[in-house]
């Protein structure tokens, strides 16, 4: 299974180094791919090319996703989401929407905004805005990252962390207080039960001026 990463790694290396001259090495042709960090290469090859398009393509509007989950979480997951590896893992759903920022904590290393998406004046979801991004939602939403393809739980966790680190710089907020402003977002929300509070790991945010 692990060998399935190597062609990807080679492809990604070639993509990642367009300005480099490829020097043929007859004595040990596999050396470059073998010594490269397989997770970094996988992430470089798939984050923009596959993961972000997958999230954009499968993201449901907040209200539609809420309704689907309220009806039947498992059915909603099978139709719109992807389940993380292992017993007890959450369903991860791509989601998009807009709402009013009720409050925000932008001094934490794990910035958060509380958003009201249904217009009742009360926050109904939390948007995680980095730079420290918690959890494994970005990894788990993608059906093409499969636990069995990785050496162990550490390597699989490194993938989640590497994806989180890739998203961090994409989350740019304006200076100053954003409370009261309107915000549009796309992201991923992990759900274990229909009663869960929503914490959406943002992949893109725009604050209205």
């Amino acid at each position, binding site marked *: 299974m692990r060998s399935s990463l190597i062609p990807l790694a080679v492809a990604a290396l070639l993509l990642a180094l367009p300005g480099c001259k490829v020097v043929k090495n007859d004595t040990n042709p596999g050396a470059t791919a073998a010594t490269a960090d397989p997770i970094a290469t996988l992430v470089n090859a798939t984050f923009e090319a596959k993961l972000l398009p997958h999230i954009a393509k499968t993201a449901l509007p907040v209200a539609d996703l809420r309704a689907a989950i309220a009806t039947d979480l498992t059915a909603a997951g099978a139709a719109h989401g992807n389940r*993380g*590896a*292992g*017993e*007890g*893992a*959450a369903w991860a759903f791509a989601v998009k929407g807009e709402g009013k920022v009720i409050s925000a904590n932008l001094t*934490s*290393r794990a910035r958060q905004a509380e958003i009201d998406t249904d217009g009742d004046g009360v926050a109904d979801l939390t948007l995680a805005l980095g*730079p*420290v991004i*918690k*959890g*494994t939602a970005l990894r788990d939403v993608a059906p093409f990252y499969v*636990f*069995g393809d990785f050496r*162990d*739980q*550490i390597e*699989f*966790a490194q993938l989640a*962390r590497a994806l989180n680190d890739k998203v961090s710089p994409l989350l740019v907020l304006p200076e100053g207080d954003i409370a009261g402003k309107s915000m549009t977002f796309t992201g991923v929300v992990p759900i274990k039960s229909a009663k869960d509070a929503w914490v959406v790991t943002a992949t893109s945010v725009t604050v209205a001026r």
Partner: protein
Amino acid sequence: MNLKRRLLLSAVAVALSGSFTAFAASADTIAIITPSPDNPFFKAEADGAAAKAKELGYEVMTLVHDDDANKQSELFDSAIAAGVKAIILDNAGADASVAAVQKAKDAGIPSFLIDREITATGVAVSQIVSNNYQGAQLGAEEFVKLMGEKGEFAELIGKESDTNAGIRSKGYHDVIDQYPDMKMVASQTANWSQTEAYTVMESMLQANPGIMGVIAGNDTMAMGAYAALEAAGRKDVIVAGFDGSNDVRDSILAGGIKATVLQPAYQQAQMAVEQADKFLKTGSTGVEEKQLMDCVLINADNAAKLETFALAQ
């Protein structure tokens, strides 16, 4: 005619299932090999496996390897000699255990691993492990939050031969090291031991009186550390553990230790026995060898629902 035939068929079915049960009860034994039940986590695991095995009609042979790979190897010899049908194992070392599990496999006895992984695949039939890395990240996120994202802290690491000691430490640091104002001033093993953690904590505190938090690789070490802090009049120090033991639950409810991470040990052991039973009956478990189970953060909000390594819904 039709009715008669149906009756006859169900009579045969009853006879068959009856004879299977009788066969299982008289001859089939499942060996359960774990570390010492002195740690309630391992006791819960052994109890969970034994209860499920008996429920499914097996005899149970419970053995303890005390985290000694040589002793584990001898226990495998005994289990093989006793003609057990399957082995449920929480192993005594990720590398050292591969040979023992292979030995059983060569003797035609399938092994089902819980809690700890081994470094080879295709040797055991199942490896069901808690997602220790995910659990450690949960614990570290809570720890950082309780610390206000800043301050001096110490880490107590588990027994080096246990793969989970390293996995948890890596998971902790994966989160904590993203906060530049969190400063680790001491890091040392206490070998999963409560008494050792007490001693280590005493000397850490003497050398670093500014410590504001302690993150421990398991609950017994968290208990030891908290006892030392309490004795030194430092109940203000934030302590977090890992496992979800009843001891730490009680401490959380009393305002002592602040958080732990539950590994569903009891359920995990039961799953392993169910898979062993299915494998013995059908030749396949129907699932992948390596299976992860997610851990759950336990803090003051949900500690009351925790009992013997299981969380009430």
